[in-house]
């Protein structure tokens, strides 16, 4: 069955989750894609994360992918039929077909101040299940920088149930704790937990 909003639901091994990230250079989409892969590893799952490589220009549209699976992942190609689409910059909605190839029941998470209903009206969006979270504002208020990637992971955690939020927080404390000062670590944890709470469903 094909609808105007999406293509036929594709057969994928039930245990395989495919995520496509749309962002702009500098927003941390690739880092977020990798963070989700590392979280999957922490859950004893198999994982893969990679960007669609191109010129690295700040502000240019970029795409990254994450696969999470209960079984070893053999496929090595870009994600064509993402069950989950994460959009780090709402302005991409008018210039990139972010839901290309996504099945009808795909989840689309957008960084936006709007509610999903407002977002639909504003961009004329049809089909799929939209969620929104004001990730840039949350990032500015918690991390003090307008980088929406970790808040988006917090929202993703809530709507997909891929990982328990407590595990995400524990992972950040452990992993970020090795690389960043405590202030940055706590800022990121606050960003993730806030967006976990504030993400809006339809």
């Amino acid at each position, binding site marked *: 069955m094909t609808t105007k909003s999406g293509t036929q639901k594709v057969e994928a091994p039930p245990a395989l989750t495919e995520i496509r990230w749309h962002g702009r250079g500098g927003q941390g989409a690739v880092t977020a894609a990798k963070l989700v892969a590392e979280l999957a590893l922490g859950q004893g799952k198999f994982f893969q994360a990679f960007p669609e490589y191109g010129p690295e220009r700040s502000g240019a549209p970029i795409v990254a992918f994450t696969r999470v699976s209960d079984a070893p992942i053999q496929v*090595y190609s870009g994600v064509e039929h993402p069950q989950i689409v994460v959009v780090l910059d709402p302005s991409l909605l008018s210039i990139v077909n972010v839901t290309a190839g996504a099945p009808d029941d795909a989840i689309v998470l957008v960084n936006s101040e709007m509610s999903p209903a407002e977002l639909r009206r504003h961009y004329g969006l049809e089909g799929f299940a939209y969620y929104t979270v004001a990730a840039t504002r949350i990032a500015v208020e918690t991390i003090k920088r307008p980088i929406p990637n970790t808040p988006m992971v917090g929202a993703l955690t809530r709507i997909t149930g891929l990982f328990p939020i407590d595990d995400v927080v524990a992972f950040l404390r452990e992993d970020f704790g090795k690389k960043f000062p405590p202030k940055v670590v706590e800022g990121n944890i606050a960003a993730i937990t806030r967006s976990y709470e504030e993400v809006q469903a339809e």
Partner: protein
Amino acid sequence: MAVTQPEILAVTGNEAVAEAMGQIDPDVVCAYPITPQTEVVQLYAQMVADGRVSTEFVTVESEHSAMSAVIGSAAGGARTMTATSSQGFALMWEVLFVAASYRLPVVMTTVNRALSGPINIHCDHSDTMGGRDTGWIQLYGENHQEAYDNCIQGVRIAEHMDVRLPVMHMYDGYVISGAIGPLQMLTKEQVQAFVGPYRAVNPMLDTKNPVTVGPFDGLHGWYFEHKVAQNRAMDRAFKVIQDAADEYAELSGRRYGLLDPYRLDDAEIAIVVVGSTAGTTRMIVDKLRDRGVKAGMVRVRVFRPFPHEEFAQALQHVKVVGVMDRADSFGAQGGPVFMEIRSALYDCDPRPQVLPFIYGLGGRDIFPDNIEQAFAELEEAARSKGRASTGRRYLNLRKD
């Protein structure tokens, strides 16, 4: 033998290989540290700066100089490694032959990427497939784990007294090199014990036993015999490569062969493929098998020396073989792997049909559907009475 499994790490392919190099801790690494290099060299330079390894790191002004410095270092008597990719590999060209003909057991990581032009930095196998006649042993890895494992095994193969040839090991640019995937590492002690102490043969720095390296060998010299000796070393390398893999399996629990067959025993159609696309192909083989199609696959792990007898053995019962090349040989009958496989199967009776497929040039993605299309062509050829055309088939090529 029971092997306790180490923890799984999430790393890029380049990080995996840099870690392998760090555990090998060679005496010298000579490398060109900027574009078109890969992250491997940058990560290794960091390890040197952090004092994690005892390697002398020699930066040079070009890849040609990198390979020249590698040759000097190895001829001097040091265990020497380097890494390269794409245009850098191409610039090393003339000196690659020198390293092989001096029988220097160097190990070089090469991240497979396209050659210009048009300018393109993405994955294909044009760089090292073009270097297949330089006299180096070539191992092609499939994923992060094998990139790490091949790097370590490469040292044993190169330095074996029956071989003494340089080894290049490859993995797919970006698809593996820049992607995050799982890796299980050995300990540094295990790796050190596996590679063993370095044994220099006729080192130039042994001043009590002076030797000449690289003299002129004119019309009445021994150039011809020298080349035959190189080829004999290639023949002996088959056993050395397999022995190294078997010994490594005891250490790691991971088994490697000269080639890597999958569901091939009763296959009527099969695909031959190199690198990361093997994973995607295996998935399609499973899907076709579920539908009752007798599909199989074999991955090329060792391309030089080319295990033609093993391939003939593995594929002789297959009706139609599709060979997927991620490099082309312009004006030839097909890509480099196609020509090897077709030649290897020539003496089989009945002789399988072998069809050439070209895919993924310049990083063009290869989707599961594209591989399914290739199998569909093989199925059709297997059903038809006559022999199919051996013209190139292109996968995921845009229409004009």
